[in-house]
């Protein structure tokens, strides 16, 4: 723990100080409930929810506060109503704090769980509760375990449509973390690969057909099921197989080997 605090980056300390400072100012001029909500709101939008200097995420990275119309393509569900839900992560976690800690551990590189008495946890809860009522139903979240080859559209018109749809999906689902396609402008950090070039380069030893499977696997499994990294998985409810195929069309990951 000492080593971690000594090596904490200046940026991280600034982020925490900014959150705490803003909250302290607010705490003295508002009711305790209001200040807790403000503290929680700041944490929600801050990397300071994790104490890891490797963390690139905030809650906003994967979640909206309210469900947008049309629905957002962020990997996590909208958070309004989350305090009223009884299960999370596709019924695999039965309590909200456990779900938050699973996010912090999986994506935010902080394996020290928050306890219910932790001030950050209580503030975050206060903010999330302020979003009620929202949607109290658990968010469907089905992970696609088996990765099968995804067919491409079979006519030039359909391929053009797929590519256009894929560009839209990229903007909705991928750009927040990966930045713009091909150059990564606006990506979360240099640790997030530029798509598709850097990921293809990392897997240059594989055939195009396998590379397409690898992209599919990464979208579907994220860091789980043996892949690694810290990307979230995209459920079948969020992206259909056709959606993923269209994304790959837009990325130019077509699975066509040179010999073909």
């Amino acid at each position, binding site marked *: 723990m000492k080593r971690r605090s000594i090596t904490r980056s200046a940026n991280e300390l600034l982020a925490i100080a900014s959150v705490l400072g803003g909250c302290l100012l607010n705490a*003295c001029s508002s009711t305790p409930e209001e*200040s807790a909500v403000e503290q929680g709101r700041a944490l929600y939008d801050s990397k300071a929810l994790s104490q890891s200097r490797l963390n690139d995420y905030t809650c906003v990275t994967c979640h909206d506060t309210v469900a947008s119309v049309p629905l957002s393509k962020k990997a996590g569900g909208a958070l309004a109503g989350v305090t009223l839900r009884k299960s999370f992560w596709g019924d695999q976690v039965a309590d909200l704090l456990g779900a938050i800690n699973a996010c912090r551990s999986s994506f935010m590189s902080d394996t020290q769980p928050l306890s219910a008495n932790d001030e950050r946890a209580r503030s975050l809860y206060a903010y999330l509760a302020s979003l009620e009522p929202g949607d109290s139903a658990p968010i469907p979240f089905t992970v696609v375990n088996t990765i099968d080859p995804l067919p491409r559209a079979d006519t030039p018109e359909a391929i053009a449509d797929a590519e256009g749809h894929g560009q839209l999906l990229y903007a909705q689902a991928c750009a927040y973390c990966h930045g713009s396609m091909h150059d990564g402008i606006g990506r979360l950090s240099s640790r997030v690969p530029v798509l598709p070039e850097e990921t293809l380069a990392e897997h240059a030893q594989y055939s195009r057909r396998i590379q397409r499977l690898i992209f599919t696997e990464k979208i579907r499994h994220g860091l789980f099921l043996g892949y690694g990294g810290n990307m979230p998985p995209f459920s079948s409810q969020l992206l259909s197989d056709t959606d993923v195929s269209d994304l790959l069309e837009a990325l130019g990951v077509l699975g066509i080997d040179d010999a073909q």
Partner: protein
Amino acid sequence: MMAVGCSDPSGNGDHSASAFPNHRPTFESAGRRLGYVPNRNSDTVSVLDLDAMVLLASVPVGRDPVDIDGPQHLVLDLENGLGYVALSYPFSITSAHAVAQGATLRSGYVEALNLLDLSIAGDLRVEPKAADVAFSPASGRLAVAHADDSRSLQGDIETRRSNLVFVDPASSIAEGKAAPSRLPACAVPSTLAFDSDGARVFVACTGEDSLVVVDSASRTVLSRGPSGPSVDNDPAASFNKPYGLVVDAARQRLLISNEVSRTVAVFDLSDPPTLLSSHRVVGPMETVDFSVPMFPVLTSDSTLAIPFQSPNGAALLDITSGEQLHRVQYSDDQCLNPAEFTVTSDSRLFLVCEGDHYHPGAVVEVNPDTLAIVASIPVELYPERMTILEP
């Protein structure tokens, strides 16, 4: 922390005292007989009211929100209000990248659960393929077996042996200060159980085709012997392949089901255990009948109830005379892959049906005399064993 410097007397954090209210269902016994059934492929524990024959809830357990944690067997520590479940993390990865990048076995865990609501009280990392967990109420000790078949290609027998992990007391897992000790006991153990005072652990060592007895206090192997019938100087005829192991502490009997010899071996609990008898379910001669026995139970001093698979069925045998008293077959709809019999203090007989591991299994109550199914409760994916909390 945040309210430092403010004069508001309530600014001490009490404003969010109700943070994270517990929405979990609770499972007070309240005079009921409860059954706890881990579902390996759903990462849940189903809690059943065995008096009303209803499913109260299936509660997620485990540490990973996406991967299969594989909870296999839950044991009860009533004095501390805890249950312990082994998380096996079966290797289920088939994707191109994960396999190519060398995805491998993950360490198993033992998770301590608060019995009231199955919330997680703590966990302990153990070793890959945590296959079974046993707890002794008498000593407070916990033991974990690891069916680590990745070691089975090693040439040296000592290297093939995976560790038994002991935790003493088991409740230290919930307190976050468990200090486990390890003993390389045998190759690919499947199941284990303590004797009545917790002094010895019996281990079904599938990978060595043996029954191993361990002194749980000194962590030493007391004996190794055949897990079933053997023929002098004929290893092939002596091959048993033990899997299910159950101690009937009240009747001072140890029951081991053997997959290859298709026998249930009955031992006494002397040191070392003595084989008293072995029993094989006899099927109709006109069918190819494997009748692989699973976890049996003694329903009386002389009556042995054996569930078997391939085909689905069960049998009653008299262990004194060796006579097969009754045999039934179940359809896939009634009970697919019968796995474990358990008997209650008032002689009701329950059977866990695994199902096909991809669709829900079930717990059924059967008539102890006819083995006919009288009631059924669907659970989730791949149940194998049930632990009963008596009222």
